[in-house]
């Protein structure tokens, strides 16, 4: 039961949805009984498409999968068998089991995507789990750069592609392995690795 990452290493900035979601609001039920707003105390399954949507502004499964394909080239098939859930406004989770919606429990799969702001942001968990299927917006870094990145440091890196959230990957044991998310702006790669996941490997 030894755990190399005890709870003390979990930083408040962690991307994982926490027990309390200060940014979320508990939506009142409308007279029809259908939720119109997001309820931060439970997981709600994303609607398949816009036609199935009742909560205003909630992303659809279709949009979420299309975003991963458009932005990173992850094939649609990778997400077969997965359902996507919102707990806390704009905090999406990916789950590969059976659960009814809504469901008020502590966790459902892994944190997956933040959609609250204009630019959607994948989580470290999602990038590590699905990022090896990506074909674009993947920034391959050297060993030295990878160590700075996972330590949480920002660094100047030449990058010819799009700005915004990139998958940062390095080579490990002969395979390209995604480490996490970097925000690329003005020739600088800003590490988005949450505090609890940072390591000093130097």
């Amino acid at each position, binding site marked *: *039961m*030894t*755990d*190399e*990452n*005890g*709870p003390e*290493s*979990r930083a408040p900035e*962690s991307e*994982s949805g926490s*027990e309390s979601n200060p940014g979320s609001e508990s939506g009142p039920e409308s007279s029809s009984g259908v939720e119109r707003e997001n309820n931060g105390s439970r997981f709600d399954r994303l609607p398949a498409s816009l036609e199935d949507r009742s909560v205003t502004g909630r992303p659809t499964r279709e949009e979420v999968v299309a975003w991963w394909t458009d932005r990173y080239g992850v094939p649609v098939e990778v997400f077969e*068998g*997965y359902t996507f859930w919102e707990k806390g406004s704009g905090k999406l989770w*990916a*789950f*590969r*089991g*059976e*659960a*009814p919606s809504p*469901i*008020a*429990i*502590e*966790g*459902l*799969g*892994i*944190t997956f995507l933040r959609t609250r702001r204009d630019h959607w942001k994948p989580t470290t*968990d999602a990038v*590590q*789990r699905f990022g090896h299927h990506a074909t674009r917006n993947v920034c391959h870094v050297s060993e030295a750069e990878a160590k700075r990145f*996972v330590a949480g440091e920002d660094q100047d890196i030449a990058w010819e592609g799009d700005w915004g959230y990139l998958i940062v990957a390095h080579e*490990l*044991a*002969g*395979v390209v*392995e995604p*480490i996490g998310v970097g925000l690329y702006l003005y020739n600088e790669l800003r590490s988005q690795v949450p505090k*609890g*996941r940072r*390591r*000093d*490997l130097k």
Partner: protein
Amino acid sequence: MDEFERYKPLIDDFEAFLAACERPLPTVVRVNSIKTDPDRACAALDEAGIAYEEPAWQPGLLRLDTDRPGATWGSVHGWWHGQEEVSAISAPVLDPRPGERVFAACAAPGGKGSHLAALADDSCTLVANDRSLGRLSALRFNFERLGVTSAAVTNRDARNYSMKPFDFDAFDRALVDAPCSCEGTIRKNPDALDDWSEGYIETVSTLQRKILERAVQATRPGGVVVYSTCTFAPEENEAVLDDVLEREDCRLVEFDLALDHDPGIAEWHGEAFDPSVRKAKRVYPHRNDTGGFFCARLEVGE
């Protein structure tokens, strides 16, 4: 370790047992098959210059020549998880399959639960429960790093676990890795016996009986329940099994374990147990240079 004198009649080569309990434990990681395979994990260790041995009894375990397995790329990527070697016993004994509904009643901090998910190709429905919210936080952190996408995490009392959040009313398999007096972790935590008392053993055994009983009730006819602890006390092991055999429709079944082990004991302090408790397995530290462990496999009546 005078507390262990009570086990002298049970253990061959008792002096070697005590000597083993004094030694620190090797650093062991389990390779996480959700993210990589043993060959790549070994290649990553080679690149990091960390020497390792592969225990023969179960593939995917590595004994590392470092006391900081967390400060490695493999750990960053969730390629491996640091856990005691014996804690890798329970999940393969439960043997979960893709598509099944699997219950881990006392799942935090998540080493065995993530092992269950990996064995089912991360495509079962793993209900990972723990009563402690703090420990659940550690479980979620570990599950996320290890890429476990098939787990629904709940924070309930396993003694009266309700299936209410879910659409199904029974599990195919359940693991009860029960809270216990942790005697078998003495090599990892030299202070493991600080709060030891026979009174505590009695208290925790009541808790164990109730959790196991509920897990058997929540498992479908023909389903499998595994009961494990990291302690030697028969009150927390065979006596708990004896109790559930009497109260619930289930039976103990044989299983394979490639580690050197002893059978369960059918008598303790003058009390005779159901003789089938001999099908359970006791793992002692001096036999395989590991921690101590107890494991039993039950089948629920049809």
